[in-house]
């Protein structure tokens, strides 16, 4: 028997609706932005797909490799004579490709920064230079209205797609099929090319100059951005537009997906980065930046959100990952795949019948205030709770527990000005919180009864008592005002015909003004029971 000590149950209050969603809480975790100043507008940001997820930032004539760990420049590649575009790291993290305004495309080794290959066929600026999902090929698209696929070893173009009627500023190779190439142009179309047929297989009309295109990894759905619009096309249905979104005020310049392709991020010249849920393409969060956003990227492990801006600012936001998340991710990665030895012996570590399992008993660690509660040192428990910066609700729960144990007086008694100060501070801070008011008024009454006799001996406590008084006075005045508002509104409602609305409103007000509201009827959309006055 001898049941375990029940540690303090901290009260849980209902979350108030409309404040924060889980989604926004998640995106808010990308915090403490580091801002780096580059020479000119950051036109492209690309993350390496291999750990440690370094990223290439293209600005002015340089491509810089930043470290995700230190957020410092690791390598600077400045071998272009004109403005460079589209610095991209290959998926093994060893090569970088970039084009420039003269039409030059160069491949560099990340480690040594040496130029490995040079492609010179384009005569106009190359805004797109990317590695194909086939490792030996690269894709380029230029203002000369062509899309080219290059063979890296031989430095020769394998295929040249012509068909766009204006500058091509967006392009990519399908993830699951290296033969399929997507390109977006200022002629307001998105085209799908097939290397096998050597021609365009599908043309989709975006309705504005296309700045950026992307595709889901299974190759079924295409997203294009251009002007202030975002369009989603279904390739399997022959390029049928599925969604058209215009959540931005100005041109959308860049897009990226998160690790699991469940969220889409768009950066726009209106200084915002917006996050969409790809199930219904609703905006779930939005981040504001100080300058027009030119490029945005999210690291493959969903820990870094990097945005490049027109003024040359580069903002790096980092999310600190909890160890639990790391573990689940690792477990996912380590899941035995079929055909391996690990796969065959999986699950055989479980105890066989008749095995005796020695269970280790984990010792429960109690919090400091719980340890004091356990030995009935109520005063110390309260001090511990106030000292360790617990949230107010914990302290309130502790005080409630002390009342249950008939130990509030014991906890408050025998204090000098130094030891009484934290409690008085707490009361001053929280006495007008409607959730705690009833309880804290009780505590204040006890405290005042105990310590009025010694008032005037310590300036510290005197000042706190004065502040407490002022706060209570202010709150009472506020409540009075509220009641007079309610009263006048009730008169208006009594005149109006719809009584049920009146009651609904009445509820809402009373719950805001009542000292401790429950799971309030604030959320009630239906009108509450209508009174019938006969």
């Amino acid at each position, binding site marked *: *028997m*001898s*049941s*375990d*000590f*029940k540690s303090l*149950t901290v*009260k*849980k*209050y*209902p*979350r108030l609706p409309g404040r924060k*969603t*889980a*989604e926004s809480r998640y995106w808010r975790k990308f915090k403490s932005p580091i801002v780096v100043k580059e020479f000119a507008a950051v036109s492209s940001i690309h993350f390496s797909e291999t750990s440690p997820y370094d990223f290439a930032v293209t600005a002015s004539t340089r491509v810089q490799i930043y470290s995700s760990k230190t957020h410092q420049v690791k390598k600077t590649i400045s071998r272009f004579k004109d403005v460079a575009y589209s610095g991209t790291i290959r998926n093994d993290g060893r090569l970088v490709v970039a084009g420039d305004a003269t039409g030059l495309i160069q491949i560099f080794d990340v480690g040594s920064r040496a130029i490995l290959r040079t492609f010179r066929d384009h005569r106009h600026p190359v805004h797109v230079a990317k590695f194909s999902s086939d490792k030996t090929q690269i894709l380029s698209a230029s203002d000369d209205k062509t899309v080219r696929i290059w063979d890296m070893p031989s430095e020769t173009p394998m295929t040249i797609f012509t068909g766009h009627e204006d500058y091509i500023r967006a392009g990519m190779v399908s993830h699951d099929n290296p033969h399929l190439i997507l390109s977006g142009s200022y002629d307001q179309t998105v085209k799908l090319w097939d290397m096998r047929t050597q021609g365009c297989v599908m043309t989709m009309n975006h309705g504005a100059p296309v700045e950026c295109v992307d595709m889901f990894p299974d190759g079924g759905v295409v997203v294009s951005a251009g002007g202030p619009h975002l369009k989603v096309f279904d390739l399997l249905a022959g390029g049928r537009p599925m969604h058209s979104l215009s959540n931005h005020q100005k041109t959308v310049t860049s897009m990226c997906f998160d690790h699991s392709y*469940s969220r889409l991020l768009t950066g726009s010249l209106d200084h915002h980065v917006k996050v969409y849920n790809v199930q219904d393409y609703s905006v779930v969060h939005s981040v504001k930046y100080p300058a027009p956003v030119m490029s945005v990227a999210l690291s493959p492990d969903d820990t870094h959100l990097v945005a490049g801006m027109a003024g040359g600012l580069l903002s790096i936001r980092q999310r600190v990952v909890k160890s639990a998340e790391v573990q689940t991710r690792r477990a996912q990665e380590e899941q035995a795949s079929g055909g391996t030895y690990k796969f*065959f*012996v999986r699950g*055989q570590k479980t105890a066989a019948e008749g095995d005796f399992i020695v269970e280790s008993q984990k010792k429960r660690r109690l919090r400091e205030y719980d340890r004091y*509660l356990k030995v*009935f040192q109520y005063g110390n428990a309260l001090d511990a709770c106030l000292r360790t910066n617990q949230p107010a609700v914990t302290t309130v729960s502790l005080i*409630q*527990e002390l*009342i*249950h*144990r*008939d*130990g*509030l007086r*014991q906890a408050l008694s025998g204090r000098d000005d130094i030891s009484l100060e934290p409690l008085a501070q707490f009361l001053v801070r929280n006495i007008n919180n409607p959730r705690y008011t*009833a*309880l804290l*008024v*009780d505590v204040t009454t006890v405290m005042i009864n105990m310590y009025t006799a010694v008032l005037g001996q310590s300036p510290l406590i005197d000042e706190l008592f004065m502040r407490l008084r002022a706060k209570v006075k202010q709150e009472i005045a506020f409540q009075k005002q509220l009641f007079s508002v309610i009263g006048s509104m009730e008169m208006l409602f009594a005149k109006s015909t719809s009584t*049920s609305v009146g*009651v609904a409103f009445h*509820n809402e007000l009373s719950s805001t003004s*009542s000292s*401790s509201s*429950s*799971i*309030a*009827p604030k*959320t*009630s959309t*239906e*009108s*509450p*029971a*209508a*009174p*019938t*006055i*006969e």
Partner: protein
Amino acid sequence: MRLSDYPVVFTTDSNYFFSCNAKTIRIISVETGQVVRILSASTEEGGHADTVTCVMLNPKNSLQLYSASLDGTIKLWDFNDAILLKTFEVGTPITHMAMHEGAPSDVYLVVTKKSTKRFHKKQMRKSGGLVAKENSILVRYSLKSSRKRIIRLLSSRSCSGLVISSDGEYLVMTGRYKLHVIHIAAGDGIEQGAVSENDESRFRTYLTSNRIAALAFHPTEGCIATGDERGRITLWYCFGKNVDRPVTTSMHWHAHKVASLAFTSDGNYLLSGGEESVLVIWQVSTGHKQFLPRLGSEIKHITISPDDALYAMGHQDNSVNVIRAVDLKIKNSIQGLKLSHTDPINNPLLTGLVVEPRNGHVVLNGLPGTLQFYDPIKDQHIMELEVFPRNKVSRTYEKEIVAPRVMHVAFSNDKSGRWMVTVDGRDDKTTTPELYIKFWEYDDDSHTYVLNTRVDSPHKKEVTSCIFNPRQGNQSPMVVTTSLDGTFKVWELTHQGEARRGVEAERAWSCRSTGFYRDMVPRAAGFASDGSLLAVAYDQIITLWNPYLNTLQGVLTQPPENRPIRHLTFLKNSPFLIAATSDHLYSWNLLTCSVWWSYQLKVDRLVASQTNSNFMVTCSNRVQGAAPQHRIMVFKPTDPKPVRIDTVEKKPRAITFMPDATAAAKDIVEPILIMNHGFAFEILGGRSVEELKAEAEEAAEKARVAALAAETKKSLMSDIFGKTAAMDAAAAAQDKKEKKQQQDTVASRGMVSKKNMVRNPLFDAPSHVMAPVSSLFEAFMGQLLTQGKAAKDEAKARKKALKQQKLEEAQQQAGATGNTADTAIDIDMDDDAVEIVGVKEGEDDAIPSSLAKIFSARLSL
């Protein structure tokens, strides 16, 4: 069950203990906690006529038991066969008993007698007979009939303990502030009756400053331990040289009364317990303490088993905990109805008796802040649920700590009782009163209710009623609470927050709407059985609402006088609404919106049946000059003439209908469950009470057998040499029997578990250590083929059954069926079922043979 009124006594082998339980004595197995046998089961068959206060093993024969009772008798029992051997008439209520093996025919008793002092008589008259001053008189009673039976030794007031030293020399008795030590073995002066309390060589009395509450005698030394009201334990060394000036040692840890003391048999340790619910183990020589805290309830009695391996503690909450001495872990906990032992003023039965729909158990207040689930038929504790979780702490000051109360409990109406709602709170009159509504969901894994939502101060004042919407189906559940603050609130289950990837949205209850009617106070509410209509009684007016649209449907007003309606209920499957004020009972017909009938009656409680449209009321008629009559009446909604009337002596504490499916089908009155004034359950009427009892009896018997079987304790022999062949055989036979039973039950349900067939250890091994597929193939296919055969047989049997069914129908159509023919067909079909089972069993045998083939194949490789 009253388990912990008096200390328990262990048998010599420490496998069972005896517990005095009102007029009966229960023998309870330590191993299983089940009642193995009941002594003194009925007064007619020679049992005690009043509470048994003391039991004691016969020092001459450890298979016999002496029991003493307030009815003034001592009885000797053979407890193995539950036979009464002898009855000794003492004549006065016995409260304590002691005897020693050195003089097995002498019993020392403490009997009580009303005080004859004038002062006490006067006091008694003043208090209305409540404070009866009773004298405790110590007597020696001789079990041999040849001698003078009763010899009076001394008289004292409110005796708190009586023990004999282990050598039989001294008898110690405590009464209030006095400790009496009597030298009983010195000569035979007592025989002659030549003893007087002033004989200093025999009688010694020591005075203490505090009232003595507990007493124990050291088993090896001349030392007495007493515990007093202030929590001090005193060891008295008052023998030999120290007779006149006893040496005392005091040990003080307890803050409150020491309720019980016990020495281990070697005398090295002393156990003490009291109101703090902490068992303290003192090392007598050093005073070193060891604690076992948070035992749940105040300790009243401590008993140590003869082999020193177990400590049994009787608790204030009507439970007995048996603790292993080695690791101080609980071995078994036997619990009775908790409510019966707590203070009825601080912890009244507010919830009444609520029948839980899942298992038909009764739910009621347990200890303050908890609910107890109880099986009234088997008289068995099922579960305790902490509604108001807290660490029980004992009071610091004289004033008791105000405990929380559970006011209402209700269950959702679906079969499984998925949801439970409770209303609890705490009001200490100085701080802001707390009030909570808590919504609990049944958790299938832990088989208990788990808190889903807690709503702090849902109403500004006390909640008067709390009901579930009884509608069936998949709609989200709904609860309505009414309160003295003038409002009623409708609560519904809603989804909080959005569903995340893979995780369902959190479900929580929230208030959907609030209703009020003029400035009146709702005191009762009821839902129509299809959930479409909500009735709320505001003072003397009944308002009818649509709970979904929040619209007022109608208002019923009848009673002209200013009497608020206190009880209100709809009846199942009928358009009648029953309302009760303090002196009238009304039956409203909602089809005509008029009072169908009314009855002038002082209604205490109103309970509607869950299965049919009957309802019952309890009422008390106070006739001038006569004792009040308490009646339980069952009505049909259409008729003011009661279907059934029962009269009980004292006001019942709570009543409810026992759920009974057959009663619903036949539309007869269900059995009525009453909790009588003495907190015992009674069942009235109903067709199936005897059956229920018999069933419960049968189950209890089964449990008893199981308990006995479980107790074939390991002997040293079996520890060293393993199980004997005989034991193995017995176990095997038992196993076989159980298996057979299981199969029978499975077969009777018409399902044969496929699992048995597929279970094959062959495929458990990794593939690289298995025999090649070519050698496995034949055996495997063979197995499949036998299955095919079985399936064919089954199909055949089914066909046959179908044919017979057709035949039966044809016969019925022909109108030439007799009962005999029907039964004949039934039997036939049963045979078929058995046949199928037979085939399956054969198949199980077939698998090993195919395995053998595989293994031989592997060997040949």
